[in-house]
């Protein structure tokens, strides 16, 4: 019994020390009042290409802000896609004194909205969301850079490769099939793969595309299995709207090509991955933080930022495997997009059910029904991200076959 008591006493002392250590801790950061705390709630962690793209931007934003005399310190929370854990993260970060809490996935918005009202001094930033305009909170904002422009250019790179393979006699025109691993049958995904396909078709008119949905934003195993299935169905180039790099590695092990998303994937699949399109969140993060620090009001929906502003980018072209003239083709298309000469969703370049698209209404108030008076089709173009920054194009165009529609 004495031994037990002795051990107990020792523990009690250690524990008391622990408690004391804790109370003195939070004083440290307040010495440096110049450093602003900023938080980010991440759907995954740095194993996911998707999240790594955000960390890259966060680091770049920190540097860019430091150059402007604004010092920030990032705090991340990981692996919370939805539900109460996201709300707890938001509370935790707001409590820690963050001036802004960035959330990096669409599904996190409902949880964030359950607590945002309790922290009026913190701005909650829903990256890739669209509800901030229609919720009644002042401290929620969102944006979605015009990624369809980047997707189109990535498609151009894929089209160049397909055309080269046809011209070299490696495949027939009928075999020019693109396989696309999609997350959900959600406007963001539909808009992305359609833009990609139109980019490919602008170079290789014979191209067709198969899309297979996985029902998850990121699942390395499922993404690999789906890429394999698409290759088995005849795809000679694989692309993806999913968070990991396994479609690239699967393409490589099957000896086919790949175009990525979020980050450059030619380091993991040097013989397959040609190029990736990505959103560069740096500008937006800098804008939000600078505006808050300067006492201004952040736009509820930060619209119209894409290729021309550097918010949408392509990663470095893998010249070892890209078709000859790819860079030139991309540069030419990019210049035309920036000048407004080329519209990604030009209705003369595609058909829906065999007919030209003449009208397509956009949902503006988040009631999930298209709204009268918001017709994105005019002047012969579907104007993507025109009424709101989030992608709205959800038409199913001819030439793209959906392998499954269960998600």
């Amino acid at each position, binding site marked *: 019994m004495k031994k037990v008591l002795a051990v107990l006493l020792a523990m009690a002392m250690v524990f008391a020390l622990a408690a004391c250590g*804790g109370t003195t801790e939070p004083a440290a950061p307040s010495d440096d009042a110049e450093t602003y705390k900023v938080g980010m709630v991440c759907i995954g962690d740095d194993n996911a290409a998707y999240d790594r793209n955000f960390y890259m931007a966060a680091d770049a934003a920190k540097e860019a802000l430091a150059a402007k005399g604004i010092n920030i310190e990032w*705090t991340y929370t990981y692996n919370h896609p939805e539900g109460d854990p996201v709300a707890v993260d938001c509370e935790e970060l707001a*409590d820690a004194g963050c001036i802004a809490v960035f959330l990096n996935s669409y*599904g996190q918005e409902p*949880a964030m909205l*359950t607590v945002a009202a309790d922290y009026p001094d913190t701005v909650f930033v829903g990256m890739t969301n669209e509800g901030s305009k229609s919720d009644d909170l002042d401290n929620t904002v969102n944006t979605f850079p015009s990624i369809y422009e980047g997707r189109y250019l990535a498609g151009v790179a894929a089209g160049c490769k397909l055309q080269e393979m046809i011209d070299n006699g490696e495949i027939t025109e009928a075999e020019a099939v693109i396989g696309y691993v999609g997350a959900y*049958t*959600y406007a963001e995904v539909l808009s992305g793969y359609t833009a990609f396909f139109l980019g490919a078709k602008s170079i290789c008119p014979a191209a067709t595309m198969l899309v297979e949905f996985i029902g998850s934003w990121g699942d390395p195993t499922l993404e690999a299995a789906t890429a394999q299935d698409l290759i088995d169905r005849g795809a000679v180039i694989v692309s993806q709207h999913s968070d990991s790099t396994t479609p690239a590695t699967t393409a490589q092990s099957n000896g086919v090509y790949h175009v990525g998303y979020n980050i450059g994937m030619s380091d993991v699949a040097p013989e397959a991955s040609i190029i990736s399109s990505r959103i560069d969140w740096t500008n937006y993060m800098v804008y939000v933080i600078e505006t808050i620090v300067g006492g201004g009001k952040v736009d509820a929906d930060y619209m119209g930022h894409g290729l021309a502003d550097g918010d949408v980018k392509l990663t470095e072209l893998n010249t070892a495997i890209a078709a000859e003239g790819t860079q030139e083709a991309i540069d030419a298309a990019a210049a035309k997009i920036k000048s407004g000469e080329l519209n990604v969703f030009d209705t003369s370049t595609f058909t829906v059910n065999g007919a030209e698209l003449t009208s397509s209404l956009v949902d503006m108030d988040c009631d999930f029904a298209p709204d009268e008076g918001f017709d994105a089709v005019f002047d012969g173009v579907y104007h993507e991200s025109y009424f709101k920054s989030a992608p709205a194009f*959800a038409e199913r165009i001819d030439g793209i076959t959906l392998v499954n529609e269960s*998600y």
Partner: protein
Amino acid sequence: MNEKTPFIRIAKREDASKKRIWTVRIAAFAVAILLGMIIFVIAGANPIKAYGVMITSSLGKKSGIKQVVKNAIPLLGTGLALAPCFRMRYWNIGAEGQITMGAMAATYFALNWYSKMPSAVLLLVMGIASLVFGGLWSAIPAIFKSRWGTNETLFTLMMNYIAIGIVAWLQGGPWEGKPGSQIIPMFDKKAVLPKLFGVHCGWVIVLLLVAFMFVYMNYTKHGYEIAVLGESENTARYAGMNILKVTVRTAALSGAICGLVGFMTASGVNQTLQSGVAGGVGFTAITVCWLAQLNPFAMVAISFLLAVLSKGASGLQTTLSIPASISDIITGIILLCMLGCEFFINYRLIFRDKQAKNGKEAA
């Protein structure tokens, strides 16, 4: 003593005093804290600082305490729900699914009836619906067990996956909001449980349940039947109890309370429904139940402790960038030590040489 005596023998302890019981428990907690320190050191953190952060982030400020209470509500509610089942030696591992079904039933009314009635009535309807659905979901395996002798552990466990699957289907199918988003729209404000002192009023409900369950288990005929059936089915049968009725009734009550927990989580916390609404609470509550040895009042303390640990874990992540998985390991160690120490309360170890010495002395 001869050579055949094993080095260590285990013997049942009959004489455990209260003082000894608590000494062992506190010592086990202390050992857990010490082991946790080793984990923190391995993870590259200052363990004293880390424990400090866990305490200050959960109990050192108002918002922390609010979150602790919010986390404790479903744990306590589900622990209470499981207690009568475990007393009856009916292993209900299906709380997770019963929570999910309760939340689903409540969500149906939240989404479709919010414009038809005032908030108080709507919440009442949602609550009743969750009780009914949770209860029915739990009654199914109970009926199978008492009629055909199926294994309730496996049956209730499998029912979890079905319930979660149903909600996942609703999420992507009939109840989906934005096409392709896999997200059910958020509830109207009328369908959200009001807050009392900063936390949704579910905490009042679970505290009432504590009193109810204490009385139910200890001072009612039902409670007596449950206890007898748990001790021996034959005794219960001999005493003229209807085994089927008692089993199904108890399981249904348990499921109904789980369903109510689901309602409180969906309405009070998430304000929407998702397949992960139970979030592992159904399993953690089993630990709550056993740590408290089925005592409702002890469950209050245990669920509070677990809630402090989980809040402390998220505090660690944001303050010291310690991954949440490290905190999970530490929580696991604490639970293991707490549950494991019951062994040292009920049994004692007899070492061979000590035994020999004692033998000589006796001689």
